[in-house]
């Protein structure tokens, strides 16, 4: 309760009026600042200048700068390492399975409501990735959830070792069903008179190659034997990979492939990788792991895998899987991992520093160090406590969301600085 009452005093003080248009610099004082790198500052002050953190630490406030006073916790915006937000079907190609030329950045609609929803949940940066239903899904993009900012146009080369990337028989049920079940599913969709479009898609998928795990491996090895284009950049370690793999054998195969070809990047999926030998194998591969999202009723074993990876020094980040899951699922995933024995600092890093590392944007994001982007969230309490509330979300120093219900109403001054101008900064 004290946090809620404390939030009441969040507001704008200081002599100078707080309008970002006239004065690009301001300071935020919070009861606690979580820097993101594992350190925290009590009664910390952060100065934001032109969208960047220009000073952070304990200490005096600058009387000449406008002040945002916050009685709760200031934390970096979360980085979600995999999402299909706003892709509108661009993340999956039903006719072909190998699409090294596909670029998710072309599917990025900055105004899509998925991004605003993510921002409201404290997620300020997301990795747009293909669905995982293509063997070579193309190039991911790393974008911010407000302002149309593209951080990476070629984030990762996405490869899928999952059953869903294979042909009709395995892929239809995403590799979890038996062939008989799939045959049944196929028969029922044939008899459904309204199943027309799906039938066509199935027919197309039926002719897709490869059709088996060994076929998929052959295709990939061929491409990495004399690598060209994006494959060559991945093989040289210039372009990280994002490897999708779910079942135990898929994870082992992906880790081995990455080791053999000295690929850098991360594995996506691995819900059952909570076995020590799988975790060891992953640790040896040097890959990071993108897990989740964990839902209500998630198997305990997959929750425990977070702590198991982190104990072996494997960087972990959480996936968002929006729009299938709500963006709050990211924080739920983190809280569940915490409850299953992961360390608090490690879980926080999985939402910030480690996630930024896996996303390949740690030069700009992941912690609130001097010179980094001022992407931050004002929380009523600890962000890993699920009952904490978001008071406001700021991207590139500009407030993009403020809590509107209940007690906190944004002041006029805050409103003046609230709108985020559309800007597309391409690297």
């Amino acid at each position, binding site marked *: 309760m004290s946090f809620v009452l404390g939030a009441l005093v969040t507001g704008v003080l200081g002599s100078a009026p707080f309008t970002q248009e006239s004065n690009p610099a301001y300071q935020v004082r919070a009861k606690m600042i979580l820097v993101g790198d594992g350190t925290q500052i009590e009664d910390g002050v952060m100065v934001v200048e032109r969208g960047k953190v220009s000073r952070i630490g304990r200490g005096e406030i600058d009387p000449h700068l406008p002040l945002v006073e916050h009685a709760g916790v200031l934390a970096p915006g979360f980085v979600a390492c995999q999402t299909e937000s706003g892709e509108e079907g661009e993340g999956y190609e039903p006719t072909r399975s190998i699409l090294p030329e596909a670029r998710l950045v072309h599917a990025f609609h900055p105004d899509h409501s998925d991004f605003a929803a993510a921002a409201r949940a404290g997620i300020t940066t997301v990795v747009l990735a293909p669905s995982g239903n293509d063997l070579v899904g193309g190039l991911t993009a790393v974008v911010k959830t407000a302002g149309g900012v593209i951080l990476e146009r070629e984030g990762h080369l996405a490869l899928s070792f999952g059953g869903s990337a294979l042909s009709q028989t395995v892929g239809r049920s995403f590799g979890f069903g038996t062939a008989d079940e799939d045959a049944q599913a196929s028969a029922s969709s044939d008899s459904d008179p309204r199943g027309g479009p799906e039938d066509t898609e199935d027919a197309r998928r039926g002719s897709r190659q490869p059709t088996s795990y060994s076929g998929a491996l052959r295709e990939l090895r061929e491409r990495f034997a004399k690598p060209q284009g994006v494959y060559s950049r991945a093989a040289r370690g210039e372009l990280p990979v994002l490897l999708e793999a779910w079942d135990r054998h898929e994870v082992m195969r992906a880790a081995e492939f990455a080791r053999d070809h000295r690929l850098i990047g991360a594995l996506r999926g691995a819900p059952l990788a909570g076995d020590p030998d799988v975790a060891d194998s992953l640790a040896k591969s040097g890959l990071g792991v993108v897990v989740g999202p964990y839902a209500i009723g998630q198997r*305990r074993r997959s929750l425990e895998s977070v702590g198991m990876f982190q104990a072996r020094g494997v960087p972990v980040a959480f996936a968002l*899987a929006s*729009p299938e*899951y709500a963006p709050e699922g990211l924080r739920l995933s983190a809280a569940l991992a915490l409850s299953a024995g992961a360390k608090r600092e490690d879980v926080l890093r999985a939402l910030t520093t480690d996630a930024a590392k896996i996303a390949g944007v740690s030069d700009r994001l992941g912690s609130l160090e001097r010179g980094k982007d001022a992407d931050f969230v004002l929380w009523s309490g600890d962000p890993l406590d699920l*009952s904490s509330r978001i008071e406001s979300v700021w991207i590139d120093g500009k407030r993009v969301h403020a809590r509107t219900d209940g007690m906190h109403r944004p002041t006029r001054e805050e409103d003046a600085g609230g709108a985020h101008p559309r800007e597309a900064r391409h690297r």
Partner: protein
Amino acid sequence: MSASSLIAFALWVAGQTGEPAGAQESLWIQADRILVRPGLELRNAAILVERGKIVRVGTDLEKPAGARELRGTVACAGFVDPWSSLGLDPAGANELGATAATRTTDGLNPWWIPEERDEALRAGVTTARIQVGGSAVVGGLGAVIRVDPSSRIGVVLPDACLAATTAIQRAGRDLDVFDRIEEADRLAGLIERGRRYREETVEYRHDLEEWDKTIAEKQKELEENFKKAKKNREKAQAEAQEKGKEFKEEKYKEDKKPKRPKLDPEAEVLARAAEGEIPLVVEAHRVPELRALLEVTAPFDRLRLLVAGATEALEVADLLAERSIPVIVWPAPLGAEASGEWNAHSLELAGELDRAGVEVLIGSGGGPHSRELRWIAALAVSHGLDREAALGAITLGPARAFDVGERVGSLESGKDADVLLFDGDPLETHSRLLQVVTQGRVVE
């Protein structure tokens, strides 16, 4: 359920919930904060537990000799999950052919997955309302069970409610808005059937009583006049013989015995819901069926309606508040691609309904995953639900709604000793649950 089977069942239940081992031990539970019930908190207080019951709660108690001592920062009542299928056989939980007479207690599968029970218990869920046929048109009688650390399932109340759903999809087919409204209408028809059955039953009993009385009077009259009648009969017989005529027995005109209404076990349960003897829980999500449901149930003034799911309930919040209809929400993070029932789901719903004056209960959504109850209640807090209301929504609120408020849901004396001890606020998710006490037994 017929009276005799109820009695038989009650005996069975008594057998199931008999004094558990270890509950003889006295407990002395101390905490910096004791959240006795919503609105009552004691500082630096203690709870005395004897024979599985809370004997006293207060700040001025003395520790009795020999009592086992437990200490924590915050104590609250064991959580009550109002929407679960914990301990149910999955086929029963998903039974689509259920009728009003289907009983949840028939589908109990004593902990076929022990981890589910252990995890739920370790997460503080000590009782749960479970429901057979959770997505059937009518799901049957729900039960309140105890998440018992032994292998048995303690049934607290075998007939805690009647459940029904209005779905967006049935058997893979989308239901359009008119289909859904029709489902609400059909439900009203069922309640009416129950009401009428009860009326007929009551009439029958009344008529039967009248008939019994008349017959008894007649019999008495006949007995009193027996000698005279016998003499008359003998005389008439002799006369007939004399005259060589056939003797005719005098016939008594008997009242027609009232006919018993045909036994209808479904209607019997529907009648109990119609009369408010058990609550009716209806899962409904969209505005059209919510409005239809509220409209068609309005004439049944004894009906105790609860709405579950209620994705768009905010649109009818004033009606819900006015008729004191509690809503069971499931504040899970669901995306726009969730099923039709849930894709407009908002985590803000719980807080908004609460502010609109609607009683909010929080359930784990009908699955076997009660262990996440505390997490989703915390999510509701982070999206605007008052912390105290959220705790009430997983303790006393559901206990009262399902008629077990006299036994569980708060830490008042006389109640079952279901106590949770935390090292911080129960709804702060990194508070650790130090001890779970159920019916006076410490879960080790």
